[in-house]
């Protein structure tokens, strides 16, 4: 089959929208240099949901900051649709692990923030913000302040805020880390629904196996110090998915498969942490 005879959409499907090549990052510490990330490469296709999973200390957050353009000095290249990333890229929207809503802004004003930054006209801003607020299921809370919401709701506000900037790629760093297990599952549903609805390319960084399996098309398992890609696991669970999938046998098998790869790394991380204590 020649290239010309392929449908146009398929060319795009095969072209990675986000690509990382040979990413390495070294930190200088009191005990000498520490290699946080070592030669990590991966591609994300449009519409794909990719998770990066690894034990604490495998350089996940470092990777997040590099791809998001918040870290300057590193080796390797990150490209978005072929364009090299230098600094925060307009096509990448970040959702942070920490509580990141602005406590002085209402839900609506929080979600309007990126639209203000991009100088969107006011009427359009509010309309768009309302749309994304309803998408994350917070309609009716527009005038509330974050302090009046639960942790899960605040994280959804942060999600709506990032979605409002309409990024081509959604980059999430353990967005549910601070939440309890049930909220986490339900929010996972929300993410799945939104991702399937928007065909949103997503890169999720996490240490939670169930979460990664529930959401992903593909999982990169990272090794403990230095952080390298240890294995790539494709999750062939059917779509569309909901959180009900966590009770299925296939889900259990996928989790077991990932845990097999991860256990060794997690053990190493734990021993290292105990040795340092």
């Amino acid at each position, binding site marked *: 089959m020649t290239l010309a005879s392929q449908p146009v959409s398929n060319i795009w499907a095969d072209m990675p929208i986000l690509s990382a090549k040979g990413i390495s990052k070294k930190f200088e510490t009191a005990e000498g240099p520490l290699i946080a990330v070592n030669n990590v490469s991966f591609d994300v296709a449009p519409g794909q949901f990719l998770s990066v999973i690894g034990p604490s200390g495998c350089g996940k957050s470092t990777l997040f900051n590099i791809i*998001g353009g918040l870290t300057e000095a590193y080796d390797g290249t990150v490209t978005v649709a072929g364009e090299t990333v230098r600094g925060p890229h307009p096509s990448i929207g970040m959702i942070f692990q920490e*509580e*990141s809503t602005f406590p*002085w802004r209402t839900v609506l004003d929080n979600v309007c923030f990126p639209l203000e930054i991009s100088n969107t006209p006011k009427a359009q801003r509010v309309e768009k913000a309302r749309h994304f607020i309803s998408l994350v299921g917070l309609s009716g809370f527009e005038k509330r302040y*974050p302090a009046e919401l639960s942790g899960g709701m605040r994280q959804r506000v942060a999600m709506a805020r990032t979605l409002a900037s309409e990024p081509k790629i959604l980059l999430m760093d353990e967005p549910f880390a601070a939440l309890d297990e049930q909220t986490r599952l339900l929010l996972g549903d929300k993410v799945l629904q939104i991702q399937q609805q928007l065909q949103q390319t997503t890169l999720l960084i996490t240490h939670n196996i169930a979460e990664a399996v529930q959401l992903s098309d593909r999982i990169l398992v990272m090794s403990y110090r230095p952080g390298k890609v240890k294995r790539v696991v494709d999750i062939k669970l059917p779509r569309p998915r909901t959180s009900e999938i966590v009770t299925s046998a296939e889900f259990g098998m996928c989790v077991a498969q990932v845990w097999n790869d991860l256990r060794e790394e997690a053990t190493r991380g734990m021993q290292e942490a105990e040795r340092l204590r």
Partner: protein
Amino acid sequence: MNAHTATHPHNRAVTLLRLILLASLLAAWEILAQSGWLYRDVVPSLLSIGCALASLLSSPDYYFHLSVTVLEIAGALAIGGTIGVLTGLVLGANPFAGRAIEPYIYYLGPTPKIIFFPIMIMWFGVGPGSKIAMGAVSCFFPIALSVAAGMRQIDPVLIRVGRSFRAQAWQMAWKIYLPAMRHPILNGVRLGLGIAIIGTLLAETKLSNRGIGHLIMRAYSVFDMPKMYALLIILFALAIGANAIVGRIGGLDTIRRS
């Protein structure tokens, strides 16, 4: 006091106790005033204080002096506050400058400022200039320190959010740094205002021919005790009121927006 305690049954008892305390204080005062045990009208009768207060509040002269003092304090807060906020921003943003210069501000803060008044007179004259300078010098310290501390306490993730949305420098300053620091800035202004009032008025009592401080000293020099009490009452009411207003602006924020 929030809505919960307002409905508390104890609350009525507290109000009652407050009224009893106030009444007995006033009664004791009046008895002392009528007894004549203290010399020279040191404790004048409540009636005479009330009369002095009324005549003061109805005299245009008093409002002239009040306006002089208020303008001096406003000027002091504007100058000392602006310099304080700018200094605080520089010290907070630049860790090196913070460690090099901040100790001086930190340790000079709790020193008596009024002793600089002779220097201020030489630099800015005997008029309002030296009073404004006294107030400005006084309020500079708490404002600079709380702004510097506030800048360091900004949650770093909020700054990362701004950068991830590619906010311009002015957008970062206006939409992230400033609102994130509103509590420490307001608190600094509250502290600074209290100290500026003290600095300005003390300078007026030492050497001046106008302002509330001058009126107090004039009342003192003719032993017009009722008038002095009236002036002090007004002064305390204004100072506590101003403090409460600035505190309320900050405090309301605390409840509504964490």
